[in-house]
């Protein structure tokens, strides 16, 4: 957009007037460049920061390993994270009841159901224990923790029992039977 020189053309004889120059500068190109750079910086700045899920694990007491927190069996729900994006959960003591094998979408309903049942039967909050078994991926673990957050079943902090040695034989058998245990 070139500026038109609107100043009157050469004088009709007489005095020679100095031409009045326009003071306006063409900014179009500058604006173009500025917006190009803005776009670039906007896109490269990470606007959506990743989120952090806080995990608190119980203190590992190396000295007195017997110092354990006893839980009422009927109040606890144990979730075993298995292979192939499946879980197996049971209430109470391992081996007494057949674990239910579910996927992660079904687990949500079970969590809500069990939470309600425990609250009605005992007037206490449910305690959830998560046991990642061999074959479970990191995503499975994050999903399970997230489900606890969504269903608010983590009023008392969820216990994460990730020591492979703690996976009991009958739990293992149940996983093997369901075909979600990776040797």
């Amino acid at each position, binding site marked *: *957009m070139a500026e038109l020189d609107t100043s009157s053309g050469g004088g009709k004889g007489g005095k020679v007037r100095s031409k009045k120059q326009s003071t306006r500068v063409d900014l179009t190109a500058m*604006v173009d460049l500025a917006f190009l750079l803005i776009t670039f910086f906007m896109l490269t700045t990470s606007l959506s920061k990743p989120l952090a899920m806080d*995990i608190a*694990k119980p203190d590992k007491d190396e000295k007195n390993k017997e110092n354990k927190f006893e839980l009422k069996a009927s109040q606890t729900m144990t979730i075993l994270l298995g292979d192939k994006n499946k879980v197996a959960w049971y209430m109470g003591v391992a081996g007494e009841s057949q674990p239910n094998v579910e996927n992660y979408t079904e687990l949500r309903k079970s969590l809500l159901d069990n939470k309600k049942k425990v609250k009605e039967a005992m007037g206490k909050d449910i305690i959830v224990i998560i046991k990642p078994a061999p074959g479970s991926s990191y995503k499975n673990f994050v999903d399970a923790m997230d489900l606890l957050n969504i269903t608010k079943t983590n009023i008392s902090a969820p216990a994460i029992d*990730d020591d492979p040695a703690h996976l009991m034989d009958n739990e293992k058998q149940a996983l093997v039977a369901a075909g979600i245990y990776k040797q």
Partner: protein
Amino acid sequence: MPRAKVARKSTAVDMTAMCDVAFLLLTFFILTATSRQPDPLDVKIPSSTVQFKVPDKDLAILTVGKGKVFMEIIGADVKQTTLQRMANLYSTSFTPEEIKRFKVISSFGVPFGNLKQYINLNAEGRTKFEKQFNGIPTDSTINGELFRWIKEAREATAELHGVDMRISIKGDAEEEYATVRKIVDVLQKQKVNKFSLITSAEAAN
């Protein structure tokens, strides 16, 4: 009757205001931009519905994928102090030039013995060099390298900023939980029982 002449208006628009705004925004974005460095370890993070954002200082990020662990310490001053502390532990030293170079490296995953060589490479060479190793050695004893890195970084943060360093784990979604557990063990060994897992956003339904 002579036809009414339509005054011919100039088509030039005054760009000054637009230019001002454009440059103001440009300055803002340049100053806030922290250029994103490519991760040497490509991980696909799982998603969750948590709302808490990852803080941008006093933080160490442990990237886990393909069985390897890479570490990133946020903050140039903490990074420098950590490196010097590590050098003291292993009774080596780094030249000021090497320290300067280390400060701009985002995440690294080589054994400490090869760190010097790694620092002196260029960005391309580093990526290749890292492939030879299995990340930072993760044996969970108190002499393990990952253990020491984390411990020194925590002490450096406490010394410089007087706050506890946060530790975040950025794991690949498909990674076996057992690998992540190894790192959690290293953390718990030094009584770090609180840490966070980095996830991407997901709509709660």
